[in-house]
């Protein structure tokens, strides 16, 4: 028989069985939708964790406070030499004028402080280098480098007033630990949930095919070869996966929407889940679709196999 004819017949039989075994199809889709929904939520959540951790990491920095009389040219020299370090992601230079402006802005509500500042003729603040590392674990190395710069700065160079790294060290170390821990745990949870989803889906489809075991026996008796018996079940499995992916993706809409409202105050008005869902709708759907179709097809293939042994 031509490949085309048999494929067409298999696909048609799969469609017909899908509709006529509506109860079985619905329950398989129901279970698969939940499994895919869990996978989708896990993807959303692990991205949320990533972005939260990224944000926290961005808040960590090392500030080098210079003496007010330090020369700008010397500071730039130091900046350039620090920028050559592979650990450094970025360095922001805050001039003395900028520093005082920031300070004033920060205390604009404090009448006494503004008055006191106005009394001053000279700017009491030094310039600042705000250094960000590529990874939180690298601050230590950068701080060391600054320290050795400080010591070897020579006669004219008592440039640096203070470095705030040692004060932040405990917090930074702790944060590094937490970041690594959370990433590992969330990856493990993702794997476990995906494994559970696979097992549940496989068992559901196995049950659906168990219902059809007598039909499989009849097909074989009537002289259908294995691929002709198996084909429609695989088509059905693919359809379960497709419909379940649509259901699971659609289900994420109200859930993320609800999360936005529920967490609005919590994260200072930053909405992660809903906007991520809307912006990555295509990717999320594609992942769930490919996953669902693959799971459905492979589960069906394996589940039918045990009834095909001579």
């Amino acid at each position, binding site marked *: *028989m*031509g490949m085309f*004819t*048999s494929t067409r*017949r298999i696909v048609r039989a799969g469609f*017909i*069985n899908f509709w*006529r*075994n509506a109860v079985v199809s619905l329950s398989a889709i129901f279970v698969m939708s939940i499994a895919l929904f869990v996978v989708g939520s896990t993807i959303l959540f692990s991205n949320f964790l990533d972005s939260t951790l990224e944000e926290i990491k961005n808040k960590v920095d090392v500030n080098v406070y210079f003496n007010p009389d330090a020369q700008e040219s010397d500071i730039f020299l130091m900046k350039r030499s620090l920028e050559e370090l592979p650990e450094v992601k970025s360095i922001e230079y805050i001039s003395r004028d900028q520093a005082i402006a920031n300070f004033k802005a920060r205390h604009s509500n404090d009448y006494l402080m503004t008055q006191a500042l106005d009394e001053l003729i000279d700017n009491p603040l030094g310039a600042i280098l705000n250094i960000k590392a590529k990874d939180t674990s690298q601050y230590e190395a950068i701080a060391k480098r600054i320290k050795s710069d400080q010591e070897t700065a020579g006669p004219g160079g008592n440039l640096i007033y203070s470095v705030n790294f040692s004060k932040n060290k405990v917090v930074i170390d702790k944060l590094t630990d937490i970041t690594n821990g959370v990433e590992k745990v969330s990856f493990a949870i993702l794997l476990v949930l995906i494994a559970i989803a696979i097992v549940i889906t496989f068992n559901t489809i196995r049950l659906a095919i168990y219902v059809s075991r*007598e*039909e499989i*026996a*009849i*097909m*074989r*008796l*009537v*002289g*259908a*070869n*294995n691929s*002709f018996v198996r084909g429609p079940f695989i088509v059905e499995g693919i359809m379960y996966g497709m419909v379940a992916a649509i259901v699971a993706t659609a289900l994420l809409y109200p859930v993320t929407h609800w999360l936005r409202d529920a967490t609005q105050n919590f994260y200072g008005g930053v909405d992660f889940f809903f906007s991520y869902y809307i912006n990555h709708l295509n990717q999320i759907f594609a992942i769930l679709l490919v996953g669902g179709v693959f799971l459905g097809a492979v589960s069906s293939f394996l589940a039918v196999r045990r009834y095909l042994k*001579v």
Partner: protein
Amino acid sequence: MIYFDNVTKLYSDHAAVSDVTFGIESGEFLSIVGHSGAGKTSLLRLLLVEDRPTSGAVFFEKTDIHRIKAAHVPEYRRRIGTVFQDFRLFPNKTAYENIAFALEAAGRTDEEIRSDVPQVLELVDLASKALHFPHELSGGEKQRVAIARAIISQPDVLIADEPTGNLDPVNTYDIIQILKKINDMGTTIILTTHNKGIIDALKKRVVTMENGKVIRDDAHGKYIL
């Protein structure tokens, strides 16, 4: 055409079929009778390659059917039609689709299917019920659909295992008439039954089994047990 050569089939220690030897000629209408558990169904399962004999061999024409490779068993099975007491129709397919399935599986063209299925439905007198599902048909009608599906691919042999076991006398009579008609068209028929009336009325060859053995083989047999 079919030859059982010293066939024995053991299930654990129990011999379901014990040292059976007999042949079946092309075009014969053979009945196998015996009590439940005498070994009739086990013998048919061997012929359908659903089971393998513990010893001995079963030949179809000149082929030892238990040496056929698994991939070629479906082709072999298409040469044998089967009808059972419990009908074994696809519950989610209409009468038409049940019958068409045999042709689809055999890779026949759509044109053949469109012309052959109505003809066979006509033969078993079910043209008006083509679009009915099995649960909408009576027992006799279901069995006629099963027979139509069994013969649509024009098999050399039709195996009917207790085909009338679930039917009333009128339907039983109809089914046997259809089987005779199919036999008249040249198909070999192997029938197993408990129904004495059928056997005595057929006046064809009867093989009698007991405890897995063939104890009688009469050319124009009666139901003697």
